[in-house]
C-alpha cells in the first residue's frame, strides 16, 4: 500500500469515527444534556474568575501607570494658599504634573458622580477641602515615596496626604489571592470534568460491548475500537465549552450595568472586558482537551478488558 493510499484510509477511518460518534452522541439528548451542563458550568466558573482577575489587574495596572499623591488642605484655607500649595507641589522633583481641585469643583464633581445633590444641598457650607493632586514620577522606590509624603505633609496649610500606593498594594494582594483561588477552582473543576466525561464514556463502552467484541473479532485494531470514544470525548468537550461561553456572556451581560457605574466612579478605569476571541478559544480548547483526557482515561481502563469470545 502506497503512502497516499495509507493516508487516505487513515483519513477515512477518522472521518467515519467522528461522524458515527457524533450521530450516536446526538441520539441521547437527555444524558448528553446533563453531562454537557456539568462540563459547561465547570468551565464557566473558573473562566469567570479569570476574567475578574484580568479586569482587576487592568485596574491596578492603570493606577500603577500614574501613582498619585492627594494633598488635602485644611478646610477653609484661603484661596491664595491653594495656589501656593499647588506651586510648591509642582516644584518638587518627584512630581510630574499637578491638578488643583478647588472646594466648589470638588463639590460639583461629587454631586454628579454620587447623585447626592439633595443631601449636599442641605448643607450650609461646603464641607470639602481643596485638594492638590500630584502625579508621582514612575518607578520611585518605596523609601522615596515615604520621603515625598513627609515633605508634602510639611507644607503649610496641609491637613493630610494620601498616596494611593497602599490602596494599590492592597488591591494587588486581593488580585493575587483571587488569582490563586481561581487556579485552585480551575484545577479542581478540570479534574471534575475529566471524571465526568470518563464516567459517561465508561457507560458508553459498557453499552457498546457487543459491538466492540465483534470489531475486535473481525480485525479491528485497538486504535479503531478506541477512536469513536475519543471523538465522543471531544464532542462533550466542545459542547461543554460552547455552553460555558454562553453562560459567561449571560453573566457579563448581567454585570455590565453595575460594572459601568463602578468604572465611572473610579475615574480613568476601563469598564470590564468580556471574553475576547483568545479567551473564547482557550475555553473551547480546554473543553476539548479535558473531554479528550476523560475519554482516554475511560478507554485506557475499560477497553482492554473486552476480549472477543
Amino acid at each position: 500500500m502506497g503512502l497516499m493510499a495509507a493516508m487516505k484510509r487513515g483519513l477515512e477511518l477518522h472521518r467515519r469515527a467522528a461522524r458515527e460518534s457524533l450521530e450516536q452522541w446526538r441520539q441521547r439528548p437527555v444524558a448528553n444534556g446533563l453531562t454537557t451542563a456539568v462540563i459547561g458550568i465547570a468551565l464557566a466558573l473558573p473562566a469567570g474568575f479569570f476574567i475578574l482577575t484580568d479586569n482587576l489587574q487592568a485596574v491596578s495596572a492603570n493606577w500603577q501607570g500614574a501613582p498619585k499623591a492627594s494633598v488635602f488642605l485644611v478646610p477653609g484655607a484661603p484661596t491664595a494658599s491653594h495656589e501656593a500649595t499647588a506651586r510648591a507641589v509642582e516644584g518638587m522633583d518627584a512630581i510630574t504634573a499637578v491638578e488643583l481641585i478647588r472646594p466648589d469643583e470638588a463639590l460639583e464633581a461629587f454631586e454628579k458622580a454620587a447623585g447626592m445633590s439633595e443631601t449636599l444641598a442641605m448643607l450650609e457650607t461646603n464641607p470639602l477641602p481643596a485638594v492638590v493632586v500630584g502625579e508621582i514620577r514612575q518607578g520611585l522606590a518605596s523609601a522615596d515615596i515615604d520621603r515625598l509624603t513627609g515633605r508634602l505633609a510639611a507644607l503649610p496649610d496641609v491637613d493630610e496626604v494620601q498616596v494611593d500606593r497602599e490602596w494599590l498594594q492592597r488591591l494587588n494582594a486581593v488580585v493575587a489571592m483571587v488569582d490563586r483561588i481561581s487556579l485552585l477552582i480551575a484545577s479542581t473543576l478540570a479534574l471534575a470534568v475529566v471524571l465526568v466525561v470518563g464516567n459517561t464514556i465508561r457507560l458508553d463502552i459498557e453499552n457498546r460491548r457487543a459491538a466492540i467484541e465483534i470489531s475486535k473479532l473481525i480485525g479491528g485494531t485497538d486504535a479503531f475500537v478506541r477512536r469513536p470514544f475519543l471523538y465522543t470525548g471531544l464532542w462533550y468537550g466542545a459542547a461543554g465549552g460552547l455552553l460555558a461561553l454562553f453562560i459567561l456572556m449571560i453573566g457579563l451581560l448581567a454585570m455590565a450595568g453595575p460594572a459601568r457605574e463602578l468604572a465611572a466612579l473610579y475615574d480613568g478605569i476601563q469598564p470590564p472586558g468580556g471574553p475576547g476571541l483568545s479567551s473564547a478559544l482557550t475555553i473551547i480548547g480546554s473543553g476539548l482537551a479535558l473531554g479528550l483526557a476523560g475519554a482516554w482515561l475511560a478507554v485506557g481502563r475499560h477497553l482492554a478488558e473486552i476480549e472477543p469470545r
Partner: protein
Amino acid sequence: MIRFEGVGKQYPGGNEALRGLDLHIEPGEMVFVTGPSGAGKSTFLRLIPLLERPSRGRVLIDGADLGGLPGHRIPYLRRRVGMIFQDHRLLDDRNVFDNVALPLIIAGRGRDDIGRRVRAALDKVGLLHKEHASPVTLSGGEQQRVGIARAVVTRPPILIADEPTGNLDPALSQEIMQLFEQFNQVGVTTVIASHDLSLIESLGYRRIHLEAGRLAWG
C-alpha cells in the same frame, strides 16, 4: 496453509482442550472438523485467528509461526481469516448492509468501494434485497448468510466456521454448505466444525476427527 505442530491448549482452570495436535491443511483445501462434544473442535478453530494462544507447540499460517506475532499485529491476522459462528454474532442495532460493511470499514475503505463490495457479497449469499433489514427481522438461515457475507466481504484467504448449521434444518444446512463450497472453489481455504455427519459424508471432503484433544484420524 495452516499447520499445527504438537499443539496443546490448557485453559486457565486446568481444562486440557488439546493434547498434542499435529496436522496440516493445504492451501485451497476444504476440511471438516468432527468429534464428540468437548473434543476440542472450537478450541482448534479459535487458535487459527489467535482468539486463544496455544499452551504448547506451534501454529503456523502460510509458514509464519503465530507464536512470534506481537499483540498489535493480531488484528491484521484476523482480517485474513473470515470467521463464522453458530450464533452469527451480528449487530442488532445496525442493518444488514452495515453489518456486512464492518470489515471494510475497519480496513478504512472508501464509501463507493464499500457499497460495491457489500452488494457483491450480499448478492452471492442471495440477500441483496434485504440490505436495509435489521438482522432481528431475518430467519436463522438468513442471519447465517449475513454472517457469511460479512466473513467473505474482504475476500480473506481462509474461512473458518464453528457449527454454522447448528441451528438450521437439513435443507437450509445444505444451502449453507453449498455456499461454503462455492467460496472454496475460488480458492479459499475452508475449515468447518460440524456435528452434521450425514451432510458431511454426502459432500465427501477431508474430515479431521478429534477425540479428547487428540487427532483420532484424518
